[in-house]
């Protein structure tokens, strides 16, 4: 901005003075506008500070309240109503890990497959392809408890009739986050420029060879970001699991197809949180800390991945 030669001290003073005068002349707005503008900016800043304060208060409250219960017991002990000081989350943590493994096994192929179809194959002028598209957008905003109803009526009972097993919960969560994976994967695939595809096709590769060897490798970081965020959503989801059989006093390690019941981290937290006694409130807060640490790590990793591999074509 500054003119050459303006760095010498005397010149700098002259330049700054000239600049300030011009700026002041152009700032010649009505006083009322200047005041209003400042008040408005203050209100906006206040809004964002309130939102951030809410976040900070939430984190701080969980840490302050849950700190006394933070110990390895949380990871090694089963839940207990008789001995809250020894109670933990072991079956819930194992249940959540198994649920998530199932979600990943399902959404990876199906989500990426649907995204490839919509981006690379689907002819947008055909009504059925537009239907699939609108349908996915709608599914992404269906309340999670409705997926619980779907799981109860269609997966636990009804056509699939799996019963109240962990795999049924896993499938329900997978259907819940599938639209999110598809939307993210489509965005990642769309970001691969057409010149890459045309180059590959010009060398004689078939459409599928082009997708497999060029488009997919280039979009993996983007897809991974979407999958991680979707999985972290599935990990924190409680409501649908209440309907598809996640119970809370599971004292053994759950198995995917075992019919003795299963538990999950957020459901266990919920169950501690509804008990008024202080010990259980502390346990709930400690569980929340564990879950927040895992989720924040996952989300940060997703953001890091996005920034690290953000490719400029």
């Amino acid at each position, binding site marked *: 901005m500054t003119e050459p030669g303006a760095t010498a001290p005397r010149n700098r003073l002259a330049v700054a003075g000239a600049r300030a005068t011009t700026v002041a002349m152009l700032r010649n*707005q009505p006083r009322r*506008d200047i005041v*209003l*503008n400042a008040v408005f*900016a203050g209100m*906006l*800043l206040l*809004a*964002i500070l309130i*939102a*951030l304060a*809410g*976040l900070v*208060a*939430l984190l701080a*409250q*969980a840490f302050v309240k849950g700190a006394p219960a933070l110990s390895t017991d949380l990871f090694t002990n089963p839940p207990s109503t008789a001995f809250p000081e020894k109670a933990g989350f072991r079956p819930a943590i194992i249940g959540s890990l198994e649920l998530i493994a199932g979600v990943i096994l399902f959404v990876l192929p*199906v*989500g990426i*497959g*649907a995204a*490839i*179809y919509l981006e690379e*194959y689907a002819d947008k002028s055909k009504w059925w392809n537009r*239907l*699939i598209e609108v*349908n996915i*957008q*709608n599914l992404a*905003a*269906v*309340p*999670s*408890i*409705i997926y*619980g*109803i*779907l799981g109860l*009526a*269609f997966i636990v*009972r009804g056509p699939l009739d799996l019963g*109240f097993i962990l795999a049924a919960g896993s499938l329900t969560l997978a259907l819940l986050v599938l639209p999110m994976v598809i939307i993210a994967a489509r965005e990642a695939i769309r970001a691969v420029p057409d010149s890459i595809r045309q180059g590959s096709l010009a060398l004689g590769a078939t459409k*599928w060879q082009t997708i497999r060897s060029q488009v997919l490798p280039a979009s993996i970081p983007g897809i991974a970001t979407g999958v991680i*965020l979707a999985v972290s959503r599935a990990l*924190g989801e*409680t*409501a649908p699991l*209440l*309907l598809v059989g996640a*119970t809370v006093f599971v004292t053994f390690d759950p198995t995917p197809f075992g019919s003795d019941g299963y538990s999950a981290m*957020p459901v266990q*937290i*919920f169950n501690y*949180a509804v008990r*008024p006694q202080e010990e259980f*409130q502390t346990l709930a807060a400690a569980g*929340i800390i564990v*879950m927040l640490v895992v989720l*924040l790590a996952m*989300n940060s990793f997703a953001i890091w991945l996005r920034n690290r591999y953000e490719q400029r074509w």
Partner: protein
Amino acid sequence: MLQSQKPRYGEKAIQGLLAACGILSVLTTTAIVISLIGPTIGFFEIVPVDEFLFGTDWTPQFEPPSFGVLAIVAGTLNVALWAMLFAIPIGLGAAVYLSEYASPRVRKTVKPVLEILAGIPTVAIGFFAASFILPEIIQPLWPGELLGGAVGKPFLALAGGLGVGLMIVPIIASISEDAMSAVPNGLREGAYAMGATKMKVATRVVFPAALSGIVASVVLAISRAVGETMIVLLAAGSTPNFTLNPVEPIQAMTAYIGVTATGDISTGSLDYKSVFSVGTVLFVMTLAMNMVSIRLVRRYREVYE
């Protein structure tokens, strides 16, 4: 020179497989609709439609039971109303600040931090609403006996509302900020050239230009607020209450489904069917809002991108 194309069956099979993945999503919607409709029809064979739609008493456990869905629809709207009163000013304020006032560096740090809020599990927000917002903020600050007073009540619609509000602030802030950032700079520069202040540019130029995106974010946020389960269950209670009074315990539609349809409910009972009919009401309400929101988002994309 160029070979005539041989049929490639492998390619076709792969395309079919990928299409099947896409179709699965349509099947999911179909399955949702089918699983809702069947038991809902069964429910209306026992409970008259007009009692369900216009009744204001929701007492399934009484003998004889009463299924007036308006009592729990009111509960849902009660929470959503206070959530929106909190989240619209905060979310839009944050969006305008980030898009028009913040330096690129501030925006780059604050936006992801707000998005962290969107990633916090709702059970954690519900716990925060029930064990902090309610006893530490609402009860001390609520003016005495206004509307019946807040002290001594373990659940309040307002506590659920503020918790849900905290959850949807990032939705409003993030989508609105995208819409405002998509407004071309030429419009801003034109206004500045006419001598407008930053506030005038933000409120009279950028805000109207981004309006469809902003409305879309608000509609989507209402739909999220209506569909939220854990926060209302933990902070707003399970007492059906036909009121919009913020300092009363209420039961939202989602909370009814959540507490009723647990593992031990017997298939075919009236309670079981009532869960599905409430689910139908919830599904129709959120679907309508989502359609509006999707349409609006598409509109602003078409204009500026």
